[in-house]
């Protein structure tokens, strides 16, 4: 038709984006709009739910479930911190020291993904059983009190989350560390920086995009997780995901379930904005290219 060459050139990237955009509209935007609408309905399963713009569902949801919200952020935050502490040295080793073992180590990191998430978590139920070998040894060294238990406690849930999401932290960190130009570090040491200083002033700042990506990849799904709390915890460890599941499937209170999901999403979004400001990652995209 009447398009000039340059106009067509400008259109091409958009054409490439179409499949992704369609996907996003169909499976993200529309369900999201649907759930936003559901959260404003009121009624009951028998009479049906009608749109009444019932914003008070949100205030009630917060009032009733603030405990589970706080617990979700606490557990997810703790798991993210634990993963960072474990994953950083691991990724560092893989990127710089592993040599020919590197590919094998990468494989080992993603290997658990070959098994179903629920099964992996159930396996921890067996490992952490009260009279199992692991807990007996922990009792021997005094980390668990006599008659105490690991399963069905908060730490078990946090550990489960940290375990299940570890690869999401390792992989972005590995990529970020691996692409750092080692000559920067050499230059720093040539200029009489100690290894520690070079790490602090060069490696760590350049790894921030990886830390940021890894933290988000762990923290966000962990906030909404319900498998770990259901299998490794008790009702006293339930997170907001358990409440959403119960509201949707057992109680059939769809509006509250939808409202809880939106509150969670909003809080996480706000948290991420603050976090990115704190890390100074406004130039994240530049750093990543």
């Amino acid at each position, binding site marked *: 038709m009447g398009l000039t060459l340059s106009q067509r050139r400008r259109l091409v990237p958009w054409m490439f984006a179409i499949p992704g955009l369609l996907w996003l509209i169909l499976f993200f935007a529309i369900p999201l*709009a649907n759930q936003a609408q559901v959260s404003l309905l009121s009624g009951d399963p*028998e009479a*049906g739910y009608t*749109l009444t713009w019932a914003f008070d569902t949100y205030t009630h949801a917060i009032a009733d479930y603030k405990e589970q919200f706080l617990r979700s952020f606490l557990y997810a935050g703790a798991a993210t911190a634990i993963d960072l502490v474990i994953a950083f040295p691991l990724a560092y080793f893989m990127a710089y020291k592993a040599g020919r073992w590197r590919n094998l180590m990468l494989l080992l990191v993603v290997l658990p993904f070959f098994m179903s998430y629920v099964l992996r978590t159930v396996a921890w139920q067996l490992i952490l059983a009260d*009279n199992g070998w692991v807990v007996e040894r922990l009792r021997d060294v005094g980390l668990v009190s006599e008659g105490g238990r690991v*399963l069905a406690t908060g730490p078990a849930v946090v550990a489960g989350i940290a375990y299940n999401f570890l690869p999401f932290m390792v992989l972005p960190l590995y990529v970020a560390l691996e692409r750092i130009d080692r000559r920067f570090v050499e230059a720093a040491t040539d200029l009489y920086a100690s290894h520690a200083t070079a790490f602090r002033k060069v490696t760590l700042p350049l790894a921030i995009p990886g830390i940021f990506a890894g933290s988000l990849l762990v923290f966000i799904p962990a906030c909404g997780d319900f498998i770990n709390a259901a299998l490794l915890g*008790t*009702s006293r460890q339930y997170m907001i995901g358990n409440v959403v599941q119960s509201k949707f499937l*057992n109680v059939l*209170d769809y509006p509250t379930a939808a409202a809880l999901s939106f509150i969670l999403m909003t809080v996480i979004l706000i948290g991420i904005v603050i976090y990115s400001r704190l890390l100074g990652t406004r130039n994240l995209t530049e750093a990543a290219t």
Partner: protein
Amino acid sequence: MPELDPERVGAELDRLLSQQRLSRRRFLGRGAAAALAAGGLGAVLSACGIDGTAARNLAQLQREADRIHHPSVELGDWTFANWPLYIDKRVIRAFDARYGGHCRYVEEINDNNDFYGKVRQQLQQGVPIGRDIVVLTDYMAARWVRFGYVTPVDRRNVPNLDNLAPNLRSVAYDPRRQFAIPYQSGAIGLGYDITQTGGELKSVRDFFDPRWKGRVTMLADPYDCATTVLLGDGVDASRASLDQVLGAIERVSEANDAGQFRRFTGNDYTTDLTKGNVALAMAYSGDLVQLQSDNPNLRFSYPEEGAMLFTDNMLMPAKVEHPYAAETMMNYLYEPEVAAVVCAWVNYISPVEGIRPLLERSDPDIASNELIFPPDDVRRKLYTYPSFSTRQEQEMNEAMAKVTGA
């Protein structure tokens, strides 16, 4: 608006539907459109709100059931949705060999509520759900009947239903067994490890005994848990009022606050029990039969105050596509020889009469197992679930969810 005679409207609708059978079939052929509609997209685009479900009442459904006629046809490819490990697969193969067609047997129901969540939108929109038999526990079967999400069974195609055990021939939600045909039953009672308890337990009171503080699991479903507590108080749980059930939930809540219960569980109490994490679990009889074969120290007892009896039922969903195949299977499963094979494999209580003599010859251990064939004095004290309206059910589930922390 002119007055409408519901009878006439119904007859008129039937006539329209039979005339338009061709167009309906063509509509179904457009699977993608149906799938899209079922996927909830239709709901977004077409309507604001979620429709109520009390569309048809029992009397209406029963009138429909009296008129139902499913002619004998070739079985074709049809689908049987059941719980995992709930049939000896040889039964399915033998069925195909005898009646032709192909039964696609899927073990996809892990939880009544999850499964309901999966097919709810299709049922609400009146679209076939692609399964010809679904197996649902009493309270969920009751909900489907209440909502009119079922197709009545043409009992002429299921003559073997005469073998149905007398105590199951009528339930509150389906007094004449026109919609929900019992598949297997089980009792709720005390599952425990006798080496941990140091003796036999046989009362509902034991769940609240401070000796087992923190070493008891309770079932999270109020239909299982609150009703059992009520039996312990001498209340006929089958006729319990909502207030009585809420009272029982309150008692469970108090004990929970005092640290009596380790967890509230679904079927997953089995891990805690076999691993010795708990001394006592509120348990399903059939599970214990299977667990005992691995660990002979595990025991199950029917509470002396009485036990809840749950039944899983075969239902044909609304808009079922292969009703004759489904009914042929139901009839087949009610042949005592077939029922004996199923029972010997799944170890729950069979609803089919006359299988015990068969099992005495083939599997004497099973024939003498009290968990599979409860003795008469126990049988007299088995109670079915109470029936509640949707609103009452929601109130009950909400109260229980508060206790279980969700």
